[in-house]
């Protein structure tokens, strides 16, 4: 079965089948966009939370850490309720936009949480040193971002892995509609339900290959000195 899957994977990749390429492209596009958005917002808030002192800091951190592990299907459900409830007018149900929103929200706590953890570890010394060298608040934030860059990259990769591999949220808010909102994971779920296991394995292999490729690319661009 697995060997069949590997053969099928190559057949699929080289079949020039438009549907397959659309599915792969949509998966990548949504997950990359969601990860980028979450990374921008998450880095900002992660650093802000870690360097600020406010009353509910501990509580806020607990919330963030809790949401790091939220099952995608639960988050999907929350998004579904919101876009069919208060935001009904935007017609987001079963659209790519809804999938993008859900994945962004899924990745966001992972980025924020990881940045809080890594930043709190290193920031005290770095910020203290920067202070004694005469750095102003904005200089310190810039310095901190640069100094924890490897950790930011790591959380971005973690976030992307979560986005590209999750099925619950995109299935629920995207609907797995053919030629529209179908992505690699929901395609795999569909083929599982049809007993087309070799196609599932094939898509799974392609998913792994893509993840490997992206991680390789990212680690090449990391440019940090920690290797």
């Amino acid at each position: 079965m697995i060997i069949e899957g590997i053969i099928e994977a190559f057949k699929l990749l080289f079949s020039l089948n438009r549907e397959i390429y659309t599915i792969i492209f949509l998966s990548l596009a949504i997950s990359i966009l969601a990860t980028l958005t979450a990374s921008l917002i998450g880095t900002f808030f992660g650093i802000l939370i870690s360097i600020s002192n406010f009353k509910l800091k501990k509580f806020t951190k607990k919330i963030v850490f809790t949401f790091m592990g939220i099952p995608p299907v639960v988050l999907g459900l929350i998004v579904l309720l919101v876009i069919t409830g208060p935001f009904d007018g935007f017609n987001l149900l079963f659209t790519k936009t809804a999938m993008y929103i859900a994945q962004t929200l899924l990745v966001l706590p992972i980025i924020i949480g990881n940045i809080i953890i890594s930043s709190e570890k290193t920031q005290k010394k770095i910020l203290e040193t920067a202070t004694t060298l005469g750095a102003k608040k904005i200089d310190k934030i810039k310095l901190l971002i640069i100094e924890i860059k490897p950790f930011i990259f790591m959380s971005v990769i973690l976030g992307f892995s979560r986005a590209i591999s999750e099925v619950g949220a995109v299935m629920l808010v995207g609907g797995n509609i053919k030629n529209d909102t179908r992505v690699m994971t929901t395609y795999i779920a569909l083929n599982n339900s049809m007993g087309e296991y070799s196609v599932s394995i094939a898509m799974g292999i392609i998913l792994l290959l893509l993840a490997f490729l992206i991680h390789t690319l990212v680690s090449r661009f990391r440019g940090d000195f920690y290797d």
Partner: protein
Amino acid sequence: MRKVIVLINFVLIVFLSSCSKQELLIVTTTSLDNSGLLAYIIPVFEEEYNVKVKIVALGTGAALELGEMGEADILLVHAYDSEIAFVNAGYGEKRSNIMYNDFIFVGPETLDTANLSETLTEISENYDFYSRGDNSGTHTKELSLWTENGYDVSTFGEWYKETGQSMGSTLTMTSLSQFYTLTDRATYLSMLDNLDLVIAYQNREELKNQYGVIKVNPELHNRDDRVADLFYDWIIRDDIQDLIGTYEGYGEQLFFPNS
């Protein structure tokens, strides 16, 4: 010492007798499992023959695939053409009808149409439609309805969308989107409270949902197939057929025996 030996003997006997209780693996479709019929009739079989039945519920495609792999003793499915092909290909030893119920079109409003052909025309011209798109029994049936009425599904535009999901999920999506879809009656009735959908068109003759029993070819799995034979004969027996006819859900008779 003697006590210990007696005790060990006792444990062994209990252990062996529980092992010797024969098992039957039935693979069926989710819709049939959800209907509650199996939970109604299977205990009668277990009691009668002292057999343990295991039920695995999957989509029809996956159910047939498991059968091909020899990972099932009995299949209870509803995709007539695929079932015949399955048996003809040598994966199934024999097949029989057991019962039928019907498919219905559901949507936001009742369609004021006189027959199936008019219904299909009305939907294709004025409404959006969710297709299961997963090679399930219901999907196969839906495709054949379009084809038999002169439509080519591959030419359908934006209004025709494939969900690739289970009947339950597809019904939920249909309700949220206020589209139309084809469903088996039992699943629709079981979800009625959570759906903002009504029966748009129904006709038991035109939209028959035939269930069949297949005994998987024992050569595929090399297991003892005597229990499978017992079950095959049992479910098409007159008194069990009558029992199926007495099963009610949501206030109506859900299945009509026709073995």
